[in-house]
């Protein structure tokens, strides 16, 4: 971490990460000097976190920083650079004149933040942390510590460091793709006020005025979360037809049946409903977040399904909208970038359910697959797909031979170097377009295949064979005699264990695999396919 002030207290306050401080006041030098700690091997992220009032007082430094950040990010593409926005004290001796001044602090800060956003938009390894998240959280008096500033150049209180550390940790989680995938919502008392079975469709509170607006605003937030790629589901104890009628026809509802990937509206308990939703979506319960105003239901779920994140819901409706952003979205669904593929996710899962329904009626698998009218789009080294490719490595658990997690920067390196070839698989059929669902990487100098994965959305449609065929073709074209891959068993990827042997890859015998501590049952297996 690099700063122009003393931020040493943050070292212990970024959960899940080891933080080391650069010499404070040495930001520009540290970014430019290959001998500085920022260039040390093993550093995953460099955080530039600046006190605005100090840097604005330091001449042109603030104008030079965006270029220094861009130069560092280009020199070290494998390192994430996190830069904070500037948060200047609006109170200066110029009083109200500061706000009118085109060369005042406010204008300089705005220009800096704009320059930073331009760098982040064009570099996959630059991210911005908005310090407003920290400064607007508790009020200035609770966050600024003048005595510690004059005693040791520490400008903030421990509360500031706690808040800032929490957000840094969240941002790094977002970069690594450590985020949940499904939000399961109760209906009565959660998405609307009142109880449908008692108050009737005209008596529940969801409106543009009064208490009903609290719930309508909450629904707006939930709908916006869905647009970031989170799947929504309903688990409600209600009469199915009555509740579905409200969702479909109540004029004030924001969320509609089409916004939910699936709904369980019946009289079964919530534990059973959540399990059923997990089965239906083929997703683990550890990707679930559950919101329900009823503390008994929350306790039941927390006790029986410890993998599900169960969030306390405020009992005052006026707090719901702010609570949802701060206590649900940030902790459980942190995102660094929103891709087009994320926005289409719910439609993809809904189409998938229809396909599953179709499979039950179809006479045999091959006829069913033929009836799907599958279209595949295999692309080699396509830089436009780098974010999606990285996202898949982070989220795919089932059909994943090596379960290697990669950042966008790492994928970009593979695409751009001469050794590696990155192949993506796009999928569409008559039910809809799934986007990019498969990824494989070949090292053409060694024949190693470090990555091969397929989204669980298209498992069972034999498209993985086409992806592997392409890798083998590319290997042959590069003059390789064989290709190799180490299948690494995990708790989740059993479905892909038989794939390589079924494609005539054979086990490489007698080859020691380094750094292993597993028992024989979950030991990595080395496979090779002879191409000659």
């Amino acid at each position: 971490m690099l700063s122009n002030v003393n931020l040493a207290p943050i070292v212990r306050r970024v959960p899940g990460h080891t933080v080391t401080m650069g010499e404070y006041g040495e930001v520009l030098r540290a970014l430019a000097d290959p001998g500085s700690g920022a260039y040390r091997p093993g550093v995953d992220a460099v955080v530039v976190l600046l006190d605005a009032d100090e840097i604005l007082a330091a001449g042109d430094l603030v104008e030079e920083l965006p270029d220094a950040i861009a130069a560092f990010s280009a020199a070290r593409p494998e390192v994430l650079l996190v830069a904070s926005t500037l948060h200047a004290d609006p109170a200066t001796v110029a009083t109200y004149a500061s706000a009118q001044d085109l060369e005042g602090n406010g204008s300089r800060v705005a220009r800096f933040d704009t320059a930073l956003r331009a760098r982040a938009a064009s570099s996959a390894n630059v991210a911005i942390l908005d310090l407003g998240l920290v400064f607007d959280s508790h009020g200035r008096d609770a966050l600024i510590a003048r005595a510690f500033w004059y005693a040791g150049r520490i400008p903030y209180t421990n509360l500031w460091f706690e808040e800032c550390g929490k957000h840094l940790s969240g941002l790094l989680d977002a970069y690594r793709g450590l985020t949940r995938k499904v939000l399961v919502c109760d209906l009565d008392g959660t998405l609307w006020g009142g109880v449908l079975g008692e108050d009737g469709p005209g008596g529940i509170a969801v409106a543009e005025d009064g208490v009903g607006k609290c719930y309508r605003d909450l629904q707006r937030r939930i709908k916006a979360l869905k647009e970031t790629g989170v799947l929504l589901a309903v688990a409600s104890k209600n009469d199915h037809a009555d509740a579905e009628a409200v969702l479909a026809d109540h004029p004030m509802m924001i969320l509609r049946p089409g916004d939910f990937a699936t709904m369980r509206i019946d009289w079964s308990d919530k534990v059973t409903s959540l399990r059923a939703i997990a089965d239906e979506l083929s997703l683990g319960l550890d990707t679930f977040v559950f919101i329900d105003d009823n503390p008994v239901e929350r306790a039941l779920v927390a006790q029986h399904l410890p993998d599900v994140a169960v969030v306390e819901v405020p009992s005052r409706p006026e707090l719901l909208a702010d609570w949802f952003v701060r206590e649900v979205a940030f902790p459980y669904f942190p995102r660094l970038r929103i891709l087009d593929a994320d926005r289409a996710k719910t439609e993809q899962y809904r189409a998938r359910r229809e396909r599953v329904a179709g499979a039950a009626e179809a006479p045999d698998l091959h006829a069913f697959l033929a009836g799907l009218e599958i279209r595949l789009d295999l692309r080699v080294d396509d830089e436009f797909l780098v974010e999606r490719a990285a996202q898949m490595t982070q989220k795919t658990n089932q059909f994943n031979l090596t379960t290697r997690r990669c950042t966008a920067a790492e994928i970009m390196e593979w695409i751009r170097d001469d050794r590696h070839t990155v192949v993506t698989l796009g999928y569409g059929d008559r039910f809809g377009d799934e986007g990019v669902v498969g990824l494989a990487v070949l090292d053409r100098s060694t024949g190693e295949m470090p990555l091969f994965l397929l989204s669980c959305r298209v498992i069972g449609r034999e498209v993985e064979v086409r992806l592997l065929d392409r890798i083998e073709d590319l290997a042959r074209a590069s003059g390789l005699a064989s290709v190799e891959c180490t299948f690494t068993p995990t708790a989740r990827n059993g479905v892909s264990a038989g794939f390589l042997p079924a494609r005539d890859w054979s086990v490489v015998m007698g080859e020691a695999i380094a750094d292993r501590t597993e028992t024989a049952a979950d030991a990595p297996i080395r496979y090779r396919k002879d191409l000659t």
Partner: protein
Amino acid sequence: MTDDELEVRVIGLIGRELGVPDGSVTPATVSGDLERWDSLGHLQICMALEAEFGISPELEELEELDSVAAIVAYVREDA
């Protein structure tokens, strides 16, 4: 809170902030006894005192809080 309870909390806080093993800080400890109780360690102790006890020592008081006994006395009077 009795003086003993306060002393136990202060000792725990100092040990935590300095990252030293249990037992390193005693009722008799002064800043010079511990290598980690340097100027940065001292500030981190004072910041934690502010957060935990709601006290707000003045700049010129900070350096006087250089022993377990001095801190206990200050917190007792100020909190």
